[in-house]
Structure formats: C-alpha cells, structure tokens
C-alpha cells in the first residue's frame, strides 16, 4: 500500500506532508506529559512493527499473502499519539533507507497507513480493548477493515489528484477496494490474534495505556485533514489548467520539441531562433543530439568528481 | 565520596504480581572490594543488583551507596556513583557507533565536545576497544560488545561497578579476557554470576542468595569449597574443585 514518489504531485505530496507534520507536532506536544520511559518503548515497538511487516502471511482462500500494517495494533498498545509518531518514523525509514514509498509520498503514506487506522478507527475500538470478548474481537476486525479501506481509498484519491498515472479511477476503485477487503481482514484477524495472545500471557501490557487518556481532539485532526485535501485538490486543479510549455506542445503532437519558454526566448543564441510548430527531421535530430550532449556532460562531470576525489587525502573510514 | 560503601539494610521487595523477590537482605561492602552474588535462577540476583543502581527503589529497608541513600531525590547522584553493566549488551548499546554510544552518558551530563573525545577514548582504551570506535554495535562480536558496554559505563567515572552475568555467552578466550579486564579495575566490583570459576579468579567475597534471602556471606575460598552449602542452594562446586 506504500505510494511511490513517482505517482505523487508536489501539490498533493506537499499538502499531506504539512498536515502529517501538523498532526505529528500535536502528538509530540501531548507526549511531553508522558514519562521519558515511553520513548525507548516507542523505539522498540516501531522496530517490532517494521520487522513484523517483513513476515508474509497467507490470506486464506485467496492464495495470496499480505503483511501486517500495524497502525491499529500500535495504537492499542501505546496510545494514538505515540502510535502516530512511530508510524511517521517507520515510514520515513522505509522511504529513505529502503526506497519503499518515497520522501515526497511520505505525507500520503503517513495519512493512509497512520492517520486513518490510528485517529479515525482506533477511538471506535478503544473501549473494546479492555474486555477480550467475542463481540469486541469482531469490532476490532471490522475497525481494521475500515481502516485499511480508508487507506486504500486515500491511495486512489491521492493518485487521481496527482494525475501522473492516467488512471480511470472509478473502475480502479472498484478493483482496488475488494483486494483491500482481504488485506483489511488479515490486518484485523492478526491484530486480534496478537492482542488475545497478549491477554493470555501478559495482560499487563495492554490496559495501562488504553484505559487512561481521552479521545484525541478529533476536530483538530479533522480540520487539518480537510484542509490538506482542499489544498491538494486546488493545487492539482491549478496545475492542470495551467499546463506549462512542455505539456502544451506535447498535446499538439510534438515530443522532442518544446515551445521555448520566455527565458529560453530571451537567451536564445541566435536572433530569430524559434522552434516552429512544424515537426521536421531537424528537431528530431536535435533531440537525439541534445540527449547525447547532456549525457556526455554528465559523464564528464563524473570524471571530474572522481579525479578530484583521487587527489584528496583519503578519509579515515 | 572517597569511601564507596554499599550498604543494604533489611531490603525487601516483591513484584507487582505479588511474587516475593528479596527478603530482608542485609550486607555491607567496603571500598575496593570485589564481591560475587551467586544463586540459582530466580534467586533474586538481578533484582538485588537493580536496587543498587536505583532502577528499583526499596519497598522496605534501605540501600545506601557512598554517602547517599537510594531514593528518588538522590537518583542522579546514585547513578553517577554506580556503573551498571547489563547482561545483554544489546540492551545497553543503542547508538549507531561505538564512539557515540560511549559518549552518550558524558554528553547527557553536559560534558563539552573536546572533553568528550578524551573521556571516550580513555574508557575505550581501558577495555582495549579503542580500535572499534567507528564501528556500529551490531558489527561487533559478543566479546567486543561486552567490552564496549563496560566502556559506556566507565566513561561516567563510576566509583562502583555492578555487572550482571559478565561472562554469559562468551567463548573461553573472551571469557579469559573478561576475567583479566575485571581484575584490572580498582573500582568496588559487585557481580552476579553462575560462573563460579570466574568468582574464584576475580572476587574475594561471595554472597549466596536463595529465594531472595542471603544464605551465606564469606570469603571465596571457604564458601566455594563447601559442597553441602552450595548444593543446598542449587549450586555445585566450581569445576576446578571437582574430582
């Protein structure tokens, strides 16, 4: 469910980045009243989720497999604020250290996999956690499914708003949500399995965080989220009604030739130099030669760096 | 603070679930002594050690380290006097490099960067691990990890070293190195262990714990040769005294 950078436009990515930062900041402020002992716990809990995500689990009846998301489990164990911060960091590490997701898409991923299960769904099951009965198990599973479906919907909306992958989003949504129904069920059953294992063996781990604490200020969080969606939507709309030169010329059927921007016109080496709208072989050749030149310069620059490096005193490693 | 005394008076402790762990433990350890705490699994060794460092606070009775009582108000002072080395180095080493890990304590105490370098290197040299300074903890062998975790504690200049199972999981060569290292220290040393041969090499005095109670307290050579006493407490003669 990780969204990749390659699908996210700066408007969407930036808006969700800012909103996830805002939520993280609020969570962080709330955490300041918790004892410092919570921090190491958050660290190992994050590492646990990270490692658990690497285990592939078969989804019965489908022949496929999936893995734990962990947002709901974390919220149940350490409370929503800590859980959100942990998910933020886990996704940050996955984006930078494993190239899974991406830096620009981080905001989207934090919202999809952290915000939805932790802030939207978790408050709904908070009270069920204290009693491990059958009813509350079903409730947790339903909650997990809803959380995952919300996340999946988020992926589709963000992708569509970004407009980089040309998705026909209605059929895509129709195919995407059933897949995530299975994944959501897995998440729910697994969360329940882990929680009931803990009830049996170490009941002291669960209640200490869940009993205390009030519901997070959902109004604040909701406003942030709506704001982000609005900004992202507006940004995308703006981007698509003001396509820049390159896109405009491409729509007219040219590929290797862009209409010169104002800057290019001003700095054109020859007076009267202009790329006409007519597609001739000259401009095709120009494109190919241009790319060769660029690659040549890149290689040259690389050589310079290597040469400089060799002439520097070796660093102590 | 020249006299690094450790005094326990009628120390008792039971876990939140009601399991008693320590039962009226009393002893006095004087400056520079090297004392082993031995006993079967679950005898309360680790619990006792954690009291000396102020991780657990006495439920009844008292613990005194140097001139101060171990209680909430004095924790900083206690922690500066007592260096605690955990059994599993992975619980102790968490920074990305050995250097930063050893520097963690001094930096927390506000030592400035030029002083840090000197302190860290002094500590690493003391355990013979200076060459490891830029390595990450997971790149180290078991023995190296153990040495480095001792260095992280030495960097804080403690007067008293408390070690939990310093030779567990070490191969014979590294165990030998650890014994040599422990013998170099002039600190007051208190260690919990199952390795009675280690006790013979490093310690002068032994306390035996059995179900939270001290059942013997005496000089190493006499206690560890007493087969009956050891067996009554779930232990056996050190290997070199067998046969």
């Amino acid at each position: 469910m990780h969204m990749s950078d390659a699908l996210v436009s700066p408007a969407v990515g930036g808006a969700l980045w800012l909103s996830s930062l805002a939520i993280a900041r609020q969570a962080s402020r709330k955490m300041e009243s918790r004892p410092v002992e919570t921090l190491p716990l958050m660290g190992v809990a994050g590492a646990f989720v990270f490692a658990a995500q690497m285990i592939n689990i078969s989804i019965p009846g489908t022949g496929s497999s999936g893995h734990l998301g962990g947002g709901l489990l974390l919220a149940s164990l350490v409370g929503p604020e800590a859980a959100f911060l942990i998910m933020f960091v886990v996704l940050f590490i996955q984006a930078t250290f494993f190239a899974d997701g991406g830096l620009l898409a981080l905001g989207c991923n934090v919202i999809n996999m952290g915000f939805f299960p932790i802030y939207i769904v978790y408050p709904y099951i908070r009270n069920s956690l204290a009693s491990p009965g059958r009813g509350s198990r079903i409730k947790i599973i339903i909650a997990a499914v809803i959380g995952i479906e919300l996340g999946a919907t988020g992926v589709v909306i963000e992708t569509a708003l970004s407009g980089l992958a040309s998705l026909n989003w209605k059929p895509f949504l129709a195919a995407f949500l059933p897949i995530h129904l299975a994944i959501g069920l897995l998440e729910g059953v697994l969360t329940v399995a882990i929680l009931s294992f803990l009830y049996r063996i170490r009941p002291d781990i669960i209640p200490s965080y869940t009993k205390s604490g009030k519901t997070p200020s959902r109004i604040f969080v909701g406003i942030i989220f709506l704001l982000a969606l609005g900004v992202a939507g507006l940004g995308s709309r703006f981007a698509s009604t003001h396509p820049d030169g390159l896109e405009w010329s491409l729509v007219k059927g040219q590929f290797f030739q862009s209409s010169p921007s104002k800057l290019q016109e001003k700095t054109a080496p020859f007076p009267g130099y202009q790329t006409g709208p007519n597609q001739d072989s000259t401009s095709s050749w120009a494109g190919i030669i241009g790319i060769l030149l660029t690659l040549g310069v890149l290689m040259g620059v690389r050589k310079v760096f290597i040469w400089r490096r060799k002439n520097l005193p070796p660093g102590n490693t | 603070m020249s006299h690094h005394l450790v005094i326990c008076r009628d120390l008792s402790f039971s876990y939140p679930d009601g399991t008693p762990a320590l039962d009226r433990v009393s002893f006095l350890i004087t400056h520079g002594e090297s004392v082993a705490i031995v006993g079967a699994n679950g005898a309360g060794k680790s619990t006792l050690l954690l009291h000396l460092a102020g991780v657990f606070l006495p439920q009844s009775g008292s613990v005194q380290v140097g001139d101060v009582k171990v209680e909430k108000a004095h924790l900083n002072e206690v922690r500066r006097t007592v260096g605690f080395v955990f059994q599993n180095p992975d619980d102790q080493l968490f920074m990305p490099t050995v250097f930063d890990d050893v520097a963690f304590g001094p930096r927390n105490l506000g030592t400035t960067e030029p002083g840090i370098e000197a302190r860290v290197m002094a500590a690493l040299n003391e355990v013979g691990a200076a060459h490891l300074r830029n390595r990450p903890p997971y790149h180290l062998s078991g023995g190296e990890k153990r040495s480095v975790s001792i260095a992280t504690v030495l960097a804080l200049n403690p007067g008293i070293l408390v070690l939990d199972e310093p030779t567990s999981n070490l191969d014979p060569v590294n165990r030998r190195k650890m014994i040599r290292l422990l013998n170099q220290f002039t600190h007051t040393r208190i260690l919990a262990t199952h390795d009675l041969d280690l006790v013979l090499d490093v310690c002068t005095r032994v306390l035996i714990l059995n179900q939270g109670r001290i059942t013997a307290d005496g000089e190493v050579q006499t206690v560890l040769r007493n087969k009956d006493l050891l067996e009554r407490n779930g232990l056996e003669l050190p290997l070199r005294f067998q046969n």
Partner: protein
Amino acid sequence: MAKEESAPRKYVSTGLISRAVIELRSLDALSRQSTPVHKLDPRVKLILVFAFVFIIMSFPPYALLALVPFFSFPLWMSTAGRIPPRALSWKLLMLAPLAILVGIFNPLLDSTPIQVPFLGTISGGWISLGSIILRFFLSASAGLLLVGTTGPLRISQALQQLKFPKFIGVVFLLIYRYLFILTDEFLRLNQARICRSAKRKAISISLAGSMMGSVLIRTWDRAERITSAMLLRGFSGTVPLPNTQKWTRKETLLLFTWLSLFILFRIVNIPDYSGQVFMRIFR
C-alpha cells in the same frame, strides 16, 4: 562479528528479507566514510534532497528528456560521496517493478498520439510510463544516497535542528537500532518454524499471531531493560548530539548552487535546447 553478519544469508525462504537487511547494513557501513559529502552539514543534504524530489515531481506527466539533467545530482552525491553504484542498484531494481506496476496501464489508457522520431506515432501513455520510471530512479536514488552519505545519527540530528516534532529524532534513532535485532529475531523464529513444518512460504494467521505475540512480549521486556540502561546513563528525553557540525559558507554556497541548477533544469529543457543549438551551429 563476521559470523553474526553473514548469519541471515542462510535463511532460504526469507532470502529477500535478509537480503534487504544486508543491503541496509552495507549502506550503513558506507555512511561512516569520511568524504566531502559526508562531512557536509546534514541539513544541507536533507533540504537538497527534498527540493530535488519536489522539483522532479513538479514536471508534467510527459516530461522525459527534461528529466535527464537531474541525474547530475545523484551522480555528484555518489561519486563525491564514494558510494559505489552497486550499493544502490540491487535496491532500485528490486523496487522498480512497483513503480512500473502503477504506470503499466498508462499506455492502454492514455492514447494521446505522440510522434517519436524513428518510431512513428505512439500513445502518450508510453511516454508517461517512461517518465514515471525515470522519476522513480531519480527520487529513490536520492533518498538512498542521502542515507549512504549521512548515516542515522546525523539524520536524527538534522531532523532535530530542522524543527521536526520533538520526539521524531530520538524515536528514529531507537527504531533504527532495534530494527536489526528484531528482524534477526523474526528470521530466527521463522527459521525454526520452517525446520518443523512443510515448506510453505507464507505463515497461517493463527501461527503468525502467537509468533508475533511472543516476539512482542520479549520486545516489551527488552524495552524495560533498555529504558533502565538509558536512564542510568542520564537519558532525559533527548539524545545529546555532537555539535561539531557547523553551517559554513561552503554549505550555503553548495545549497544555492544546486538549488539554482535545479531551477535551471526545471525551466530549460537542457537536452532539447542544447540539441537545437548544436544543429544550428553545424548546419
């Protein structure tokens, strides 16, 4: 030491996971080098990588040629920062299918005719698919290079200095450290399971529940010990960091040079432009 290092390689059925961890360790090792790039203030690198990704992603869907000059940035980081290409290639190739998968429908769905020299007219979807793949390689390599030239401690420091929410830096360091240990723990458990069961790759849910539950319990107890160990060494909520790093003129210069290059590349389609100029001269 070496034997602990290579241990995960033996896990047959979890080959990819252990491979990922090994890759992470190799990147971690590279981050302890001392090169001009490593010595830079981590904030510069973080800001530049963010700007880089943002600007790349601001190109319209059909941008292809115009993206090529941006390779100069990862090229600079990898050569000046002494990160061998093979340290990145495995990870990039592993994850490339994900990027391709998402753009795979573009050629089918987007049939805007576009004329390409020597190929004739093709649908615009192919161009945007190519663009997605290029973007993936650019942004993913920038992220990996940031890590390979900076290392976890410095990144955590930069996060704190750039005023990220307070606990992010500390939690980041701790997760990073215990990632290795917990992954190993899962791999060992999984290995034990494989020894006792048929060679099914994926685990059933009930088994996974108790397996993860038991690791979780051990994790919790471990957290308690780690907490004590940290408190005993004076931990008070922040990880104190070496303040040897200074933002000098060099950092400012570098920041502005690259930022203006990025903007130049964004405004001017360099390959196209230089090709046109070339054609003019030699006609």
